[in-house]
């Protein structure tokens, strides 16, 4: 994953402490066991560092830039909360359970439940469709395809990961909608007895369309991350499996997949984070509804982000506050997902460093 610094860089980068602690720096090599010991070298006779120097200024500047990230994260939470509170106080319904979004009325009533449900449902559909295919492509690129094919194909996948979501949304609305509607009609005719595919229509602009567009969007991201993980499998492990007589699939199952598991989980979580926060692709493909329904093929569905994009234009002050409150919920959900993903990656990194 590239977040693993080489030994020598890690051992020396910025840790020589030459200028800021000059006296100690000179004696550094003589008393490595205890930094509090007075240095044995001649560091004491060297010039002491002045109190205010460019060095101090530069260090302060870069530290402040690093701290900026924390400041921004805290500021996001603080400002969203401060703008959400007045709207939440004006709310006449229960924010957590109300199935309605009418914050612009004289008696504002709105609730997050249906939106949060739609967000999670469309993302889960996207993952169910995208993850197995992404795994297969990643394995194909890392272990099946000849190198002459794998390199350009991996390059194309990386390029697709960079295509803006609005393009996928436009494609989903203009192109994919027709086949999805035909497929929905077919499902409804033959599998209508399953509640997922029931209903009387109209079909097409459904959660299924939104979920499929999301799946096509997260596919390149999950693929390129998993491919990197699979490629990092130690060659020794693979060769050991093959030497024991494993077929290629058995080698993948016993050596590649267990090694890549944490990385793949993290990649999936990152894809989930991307799908949860996706705005425009869903705003273009879903038709607005405010209810909790597991029906996948009837027009409807909504998500927090798509609702913000759709109803921001005609929002009043309270309406804007309500949208900000829903954004706060989205922020919390994605924060939890991302922190879990990162925690998994970090644990894996420790494991790998110890094993190396």
């Amino acid at each position, binding site marked *: 994953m590239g977040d693993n610094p080489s030994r020598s860089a890690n051992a020396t980068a910025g840790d020589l402490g030459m200028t800021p602690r000059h006296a100690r720096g000179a004696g550094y090599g003589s008393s490595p066991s205890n930094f509090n010991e007075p240095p044995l070298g001649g560091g004491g006779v060297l010039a002491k560092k002045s109190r205010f120097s460019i060095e101090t200024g530069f260090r302060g500047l870069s530290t402040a830039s690093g701290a900026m990230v924390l400041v921004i994260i805290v500021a996001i939470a603080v400002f969203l909360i401060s703008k959400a509170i007045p709207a939440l106080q004006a709310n006449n319904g229960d924010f957590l359970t109300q199935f309605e979004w009418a914050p612009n009325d004289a008696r504002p009533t709105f609730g997050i439940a249906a939106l949060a449900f739609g967000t999670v449902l469309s993302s889960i559909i996207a993952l169910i469709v995208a993850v197995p295919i992404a795994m*297969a492509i990643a394995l194909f690129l890392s272990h099946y395809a000849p190198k002459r094919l794998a390199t350009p194909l991996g390059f194309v996948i990386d390029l697709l990961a960079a295509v803006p979501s609005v393009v996928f949304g436009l494609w989903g609305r203009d192109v994919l909608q027709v086949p999805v509607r035909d497929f929905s009609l077919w499902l409804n005719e033959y599998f209508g007895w399953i509640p997922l595919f029931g209903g009387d229509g109209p079909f097409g602009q459904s959660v299924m369309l939104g979920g499929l567009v999301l799946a096509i969007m997260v596919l390149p991201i999950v693929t390129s991350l998993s491919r990197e993980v699979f490629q990092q499998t130690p060659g020794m492990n693979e060769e050991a499996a093959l030497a024991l007589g494993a077929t290629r699939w058995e080698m993948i199952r016993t050596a590649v997949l267990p090694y890549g598991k944490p990385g793949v989980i993290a990649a999936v979580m990152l894809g989930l984070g991307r799908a949860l926060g996706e705005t425009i692709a869903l705003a273009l493909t879903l038709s607005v509804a405010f209810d909790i329904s597991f029906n996948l093929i009837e027009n409807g569905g909504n998500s927090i982000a798509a609702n913000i994009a759709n109803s921001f234009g005609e929002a009043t002050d309270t309406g804007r506050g309500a949208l900000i409150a829903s954004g706060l919920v989205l922020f919390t959900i994605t924060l939890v997902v991302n922190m879990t993903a990162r925690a998994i990656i970090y644990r894996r990194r420790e494991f790998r460093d110890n094993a190396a």
Partner: protein
Amino acid sequence: MSLIEREIPGVVMTPDNIRSKKLPVVTNVLVAVAAFVVAAAVVLGLGIGNWVLVVVLGAALYLVGLSVVAGRIEGRRAARNRTMKSLIYAACLLAILPLASVVWTLISKGAARLDGDFFGTSMNNIGARDANGGAYHAIVGTLEQVGLATLMAVPLGVLGAIYLVEYGRGKFAATVRFFVDVMTGIPSIVAGLFILSFWVLIVSPWFNDGQPRFSGFAASLALAVLMLPTIVRSTEEMLRLVPGPLREGSYALGVPQWKTILRVVLPTALPGIVTGVMLSIARAAGETAPVLLVAGGAAAINMDPFAGNQQSLSLFVYQQAGDGSKFAPDRAWTAALTLVALVLVLTVSAKLLARRNKLSR
């Protein structure tokens, strides 16, 4: 009883059959033909679908049939190997279809309005029945917003990465690194809402007689929030790749640390840093939601990013997609093609630059 006797009982070991048996290609083809014939007979005979279902059902039958036949000839393990391989190839084919369709639609529909008028005019005074109108104002807006965002995010991001690699130690640096990673996943719409509640609703009234005001600058603030973590991450990786002995050599010559960083470490890592910056610019250029929330979009050309509504290419695509005019889809697709071309040029040149980078893992 040896393993081979258990797997294929009743076989005498001779040089001919000690080698494992392979499924003949002819059998493979026969299975495929049989699968598709059966699928066509079932689907068209019962009238439950069209050729798409025939292909899907045929492929499924072929996979099942292949695993059964191969299991009889090659043994269970080899058959499983073959089935998984076919599944992986099938998944690749399945994924290529929609992605190829996206590219094809983009090119075929985007070419419709690829003319000078599109790049030279704005949408000012263009009604629902006017076939012309263009994206000049949107291109200007995208370039200005992304440019300003780059000016803000790059120094901050590079300095932050310098802190993480060269100065940061202990718990605080670990916290910063963790939250840089977490911040990479913040949805763009949340960044837009943040700038909306911070800049547009609270700060901008100070400069505008108490009225909140949309501006391109607000959009660039939101884009900078999105670019910052990506730049910090890529720069951090590149700085870590700079060999330690280079730093040690500089220190040994008596060069202070800040000068070492600016004159030795940064120039060495520069190509990699530029690559990361270009990738983050490409991503910021495609963002729609923050621009929608804080720049508002506009029909006319607005060259001043600090005052008044501004358009951007991605927002132009979104607004034209929602427009009722019959000429709007053509404009949307051409703008989408322009946007993708811009993003791909940035991405491809970043990747080519990365290939020439001498620092590598």
